[in-house]
């Protein structure tokens, strides 16, 4: 009798098992929705396929009656722009401070304690401060995403730099490298794959901060729309929006993973 840990699913079994939870969730939704509509034909809580489809057409492919915009795309662009700018600034901070504190003892002495404390500030607690100091526009939302994910990324990158074996840094010096050359040719290339991993792990929190900020003060954006529609109990709009956000986040994660595998082939060679 083989142990459970030694039973390996076949390819077909893997696909079947992988799709089963999705199928079950969709079936459970369809059944509940059907039951509710049988009891009350105008139920709004669990809209049927028809209602969801017409909401998608209304939001994504029909110009808004008041503004003439296609709301889904306007919201998507607004949100992705905020998310992208927030992540880019967090990445730049992580590169500067992470490599600095990981490699250069004086920079570490100056900034490591400060970063350790600042990273404990709950970002949502400072959101009012951001709104007061940067206004209700784009800047405060971007800053929220940045300070929400940058401390984690800085500390992660700093640890990764720290993990580079001392032998390699000594070796580089015996080959005549200056500090700058070590950063450029040894440290940066070695931590870039880890930086991409850190961005991938930060995607979840970044979306959380984005949607929170949009829910509180915005005039467009995916989070704004979801919270606006809540007032009308418009589940037919909210559900596709949530699915869309999930899809975007998933695709960003996959894309970053692909970039990492393609750009850093040495990082994925199995050790022998």
């Amino acid at each position, binding site marked *: 009798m083989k142990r459970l840990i030694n039973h390996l699913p076949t390819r077909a079994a893997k696909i079947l098992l992988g799709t089963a939870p999705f199928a079950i969730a969709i079936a459970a939704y369809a059944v509940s929705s059907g039951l509710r509509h049988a009891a009350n034909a105008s139920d709004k809580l669990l809209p049927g396929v028809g209602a969801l489809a017409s909401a998608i057409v209304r939001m994504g492919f029909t110009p808004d009656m008041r503004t003439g915009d296609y709301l889904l795309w306007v919201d998507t662009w607004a949100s992705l722009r905020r998310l992208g700018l927030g992540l880019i600034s967090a990445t730049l901070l992580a590169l500067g401070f992470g490599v600095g504190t990981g490699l250069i003892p004086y920079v570490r002495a100056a900034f490591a304690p400060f970063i350790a404390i600042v990273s404990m500030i709950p970002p949502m607690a400072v959101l009012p401060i951001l709104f007061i100091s940067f206004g209700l526009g784009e800047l405060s939302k971007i800053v929220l995403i940045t300070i929400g994910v940058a401390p984690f990324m800085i500390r992660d990158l700093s640890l990764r730099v720290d993990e580079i074996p*001392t032998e*390699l840094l000594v*070796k*580089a010096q015996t080959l005549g*490298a200056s500090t700058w*050359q070590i950063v*450029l040719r*040894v440290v940066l*290339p070695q931590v870039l794959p880890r930086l991409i991993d850190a961005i991938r792990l930060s995607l979840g929190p970044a979306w959380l901060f984005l949607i929170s900020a949009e829910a509180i003060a915005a005039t467009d954006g995916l989070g704004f729309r979801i919270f606006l529609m809540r007032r009308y109990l418009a589940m037919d709009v909210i559900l596709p929006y949530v699915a869309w956000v999930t899809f975007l986040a998933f695709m960003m994660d996959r894309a970053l993973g692909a970039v990492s595998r393609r750009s850093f082939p040495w990082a994925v060679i199995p050790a022998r």
Partner: protein
Amino acid sequence: MSAKPGLHVKNVWMEYPGQMVLERVNLDLPQGEFCAVVGPSGCGKTTFLRMLLSIERPTRGEILLDGAPLPPEPRADRGVVFQRYSVFPHMRVIDNVLLGLDFTGARFSGRLFGAARRRALEQAETLLEAVGLLPARDKFPAQLSGGMQQRLALAQALMLKPRLLLLDEPFGALDPGTKSAMHALLKDLWRERQMTVLMVTHDLSEAFSLGTRVVAFDRLRVDPQAPGAYGATVTFDIKVHRKVVG
């Protein structure tokens, strides 16, 4: 200052808080000598090598290389091959060997271009040929066997023609067959280039088959009440009868 070529270690002591590691270490290594340092684990061989690399500074005494005190940090005058982590995993074989020329030839970008790169490539390929790695030119270190990785590390360290080559148990992790092939290669390279080599090893037969000098480190005095009171020193300094080049 009289510039005596070679390595001269004069009455060097190394003390950590509560622990004497090395005491009264003296060693004169003329140019072209191959010195093997042996001794039990924890006798300070590696500490000695780290001092020669300027990663650590002796608490007393001085170390002279070609008559001048060692600079306070690792420099290109001393090459090194460690047992592990000696090559850069993110660079292909050829780039690993080019690295020394890249660093010394391009201060800002750390990378040579154009004609300078072509000249450097020629040098690097000649060296790769010498260590038998030319067929693996475009592979990453993780795709090489342990012995090939150490040959790469050797080629990388030799590129800048260091005055002193330091080896820290470079073949410790290799299987016996690979090891003896590496010994032959290292001997050839040493003869050709007339370098001064200092190799730390725990393998006595390796020490005697490669070295022109075998130096043993050990603790002469041990105080059972205070194990850290006395450090290790040179207990044997044996000349192996083999012609020293240069």
